[in-house]
């Protein structure tokens, strides 16, 4: 399932003709979506190369921002990576990212990483990837003398650490490092796991140390050792190809490795799917609820089919527990569709796990749009799980930006197909993630509640409490996550790494603000981040202002402005300067400063607008919330 990317469809028979049609139309409309669609199927090494060529040609024309994220990735590492590099660029399209991949010269991984003037480090990269294997790290032979193996592992770590430090200086977005797959050839046999001098034990010790580095946020791990174990190291290591061409792993696995790297890069850039939309009949249970009734559907212990569907539900619930929103999209009568959730004793999923429940007889593409709108997320954040190939095809045709995995015939394999695709790749996990699915559900309830009252009364009834405080170490990871993931309500879309956020905490020329919001329905978590630059003296410039779209329409932006304005006035400033830098996704805040009473103060050629608020004329409005402020 993994090695052949079974969740993807076969490429169309006329793939080459389609690819050439895209090449002939690189300046055409919706070209980024057409590129993404071209890469949305299972591509072989040749096709990946063709698509990578299209991406490079397209980006060479320096096109204006579009719907896909962009990044530049430097790659250094073991052996011949020149086949992997274009495959990563092509696979990144599947993860909504236009990636420029800059490869180092063969055999010069260490100098490429250490020398600031190397071709990789001087290429203006955002991110770097270090591809390791046991041969590059010097963990390729048994060391049975006392302490020898430990010393070899230390040396390998020292080399990789130096490479990471070097690359990090040129790649502000972060450095990805692969773990080292364990070669399959035993020395003693099972004793290899016990004897520290075996290659297997050395590699395992090295990988543990890498995971520790990743936990400390110095690197982002790409766990190739796990990928190799998943497909089998017997298949992974191709000794003939290593000897002939120094390919570090079997070339048939390049499409899988490239996709794994690409999804991690995309996650690091904040591009990841947010919501799993579930079909019901024959996806969450066996049979058709409208025909078979609650007693007739296959679900629960005691039958292989019933247990398979339980496993699908348990998979969905596990995703929800790590912050993925669940929704339902089913062709059913609403009341009938809800019956199992209410009356079937074996249902793992309950109605309160589902943030948006859409059961009707309309077409699924339209319903998918409605789900995205109700949850206030992009359609490109949806994954759609449906056993029915006709429904899958309809959604793919209408909404190619929705991820729609192919499913095997046996429902027992649905969980693996869904999870193998890596739609929900994450590079960090914060306490906030755990609560997110609840927050989206509470939001849906708030929306229903809002329908019954006037706006001011509704806001007052929410009992909102906004907690405002400067950046701090405890919340640093979440602040960095918001800075890197927020696209829509983001005035300048400036991205800062966690290390840079730490720097801002200590920067005496900056005022920083993190805002949390609770209300009668629950804790919304951190919902706004602001960075103000005081270098201008009596004019404070708003460098970054972003908010979670979950809390739109709550007058929270006014509360945030009040906090900044009062702080600026207390600090002796006479004006606040705001900036709006247009991106493909932030049109919703083009009028943000105008709405808050700022006056226009200039428009740049690229569409960036500057705004000015005279603090002498500013008064704090009456706001429907309590503000708890902590000052640094």
């Amino acid at each position, binding site marked *: 399932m993994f090695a052949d990317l079974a969740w993807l469809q076969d490429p169309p028979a006329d793939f*080459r003709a389609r690819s050439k049609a895209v090449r002939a139309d690189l300046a055409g409309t919706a070209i980024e979506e057409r590129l993404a669609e071209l890469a949305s199927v299972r591509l*072989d090494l*040749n*096709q990946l*190369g063709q698509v990578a060529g299209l991406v490079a040609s397209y980006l060479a024309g320096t096109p204006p921002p579009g719907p896909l994220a962009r990044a530049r990735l430097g790659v250094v590492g073991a052996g011949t990576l020149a086949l992997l590099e274009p495959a990563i660029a092509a696979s990144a399209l599947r993860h909504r990212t236009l990636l420029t991949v800059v490869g180092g010269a063969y055999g010069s991984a260490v100098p490429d990483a250490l020398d600031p003037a190397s071709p990789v480090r001087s290429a203006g990269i955002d991110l770097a990837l270090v591809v390791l294997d046991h041969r590059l790290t010097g963990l390729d032979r048994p060391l049975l003398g006392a302490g020898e193996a430990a010393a070899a592992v230390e040396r390998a770590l020292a080399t990789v650490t130096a490479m990471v430090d070097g690359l990090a200086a040129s790649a502000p977005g972060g450095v990805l490092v692969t773990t080292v797959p364990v070669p399959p050839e035993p020395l003693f046999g099972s004793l290899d796991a016990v004897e520290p001098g075996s290659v297997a034990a050395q590699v395992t010790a090295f990988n543990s140390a890498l995971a520790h580095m990743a936990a400390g946020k110095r690197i982002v791990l790409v766990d190739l050792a796990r990928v190799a174990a998943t497909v089998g190291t017997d298949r992974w290591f191709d000794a003939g190809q290593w000897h002939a061409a120094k390919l570090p792993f079997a070339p*048939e696995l390049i499409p899988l490795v490239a996709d794994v790297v690409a999804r991690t890069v995309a996650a690091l850039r904040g591009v990841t799917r947010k919501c799993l939309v579930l079909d019901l009949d024959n996806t969450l249970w066996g049979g058709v609820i409208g025909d078979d009734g609650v007693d007739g559907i296959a679900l629960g212990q005691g039958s292989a089919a019933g247990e398979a569907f339980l496993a699908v539900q348990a998979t969905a619930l596990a995703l929800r527990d790590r912050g993925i929103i669940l929704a339902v999209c089913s062709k059913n009568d609403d009341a009938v569709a809800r019956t199992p959730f209410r009356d079937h004793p074996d249902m793992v999923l309950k109605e309160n796990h589902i943030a948006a429940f859409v059961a009707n007889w309309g077409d699924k593409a339209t319903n998918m749009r409605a789900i995205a709108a109700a949850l206030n997320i992009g359609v490109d954040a949806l994954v759609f799980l449906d056993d029915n190939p006709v429904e899958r095809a309809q959604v793919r045709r209408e909404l190619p930006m929705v991820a729609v995995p192919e499913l095997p015939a046996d429902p027992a394999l649905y969980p693996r197909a869904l999870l193998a695709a890596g739609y929900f790749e994450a590079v960090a996990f914060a306490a906030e993630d755990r609560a997110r699915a609840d927050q989206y559900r509470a939001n849906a309830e708030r929306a229903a509640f809002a329908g019954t009252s006037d706006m001011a009364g509704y806001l007052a009834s929410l009992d909102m409490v906004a907690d405002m405080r400067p950046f701090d170490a405890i919340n640093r990871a979440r602040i960095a996550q918001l800075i890197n993931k927020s696209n829509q309500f983001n005035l300048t879309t400036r991205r800062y790494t966690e290390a840079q956020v730490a720097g801002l905490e200590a920067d005496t020329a900056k005022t920083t603000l993190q805002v949390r919001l609770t209300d009668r329905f629950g804790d919304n978590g951190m919902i706004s981040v602001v960075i103000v630059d005081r270098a201008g003296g009596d004019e404070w410039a708003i460098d970054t202002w972003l908010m979670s779209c979950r809390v739109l329409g709550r007058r929270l932006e006014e509360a945030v402005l009040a906090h900044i304005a009062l702080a600026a006035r207390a600090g002796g400033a006479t004006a606040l300067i705001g900036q709006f830098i247009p991106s493909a996704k932030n049109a919703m805040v083009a009028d943000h400063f105008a709405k808050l009473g700022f006056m226009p103060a200039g428009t740049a050629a690229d569409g960036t607008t500057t705004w000015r608020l005279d603090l002498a004329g500013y008064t704090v409005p009456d706001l429907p919330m309590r503000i708890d402020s902590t000052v640094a």
Partner: protein
Amino acid sequence: MTIDEIISKIADVMVDVFDVDDLDVTSATSADDIEEWDSLSHIRFIITLERQFKIKFLNEEIANLKNIGDLARVIQSKLPA
């Protein structure tokens, strides 16, 4: 499969591997005739052939091939009779 049939199938593979149309492939065609045929695309070429013909080459079998005719003969020797 005859040598000519194999060469015709190799020619189809070459269009995809080298990303060029209108290749005139004969038994005398070699890497010198195709600009896109370098050491990297050669690796892709070999593994695509392995997949298409469902065979596996040994390094020594393909180390000293001079042209497509040589390659076709190696492939023919590995196909089931």
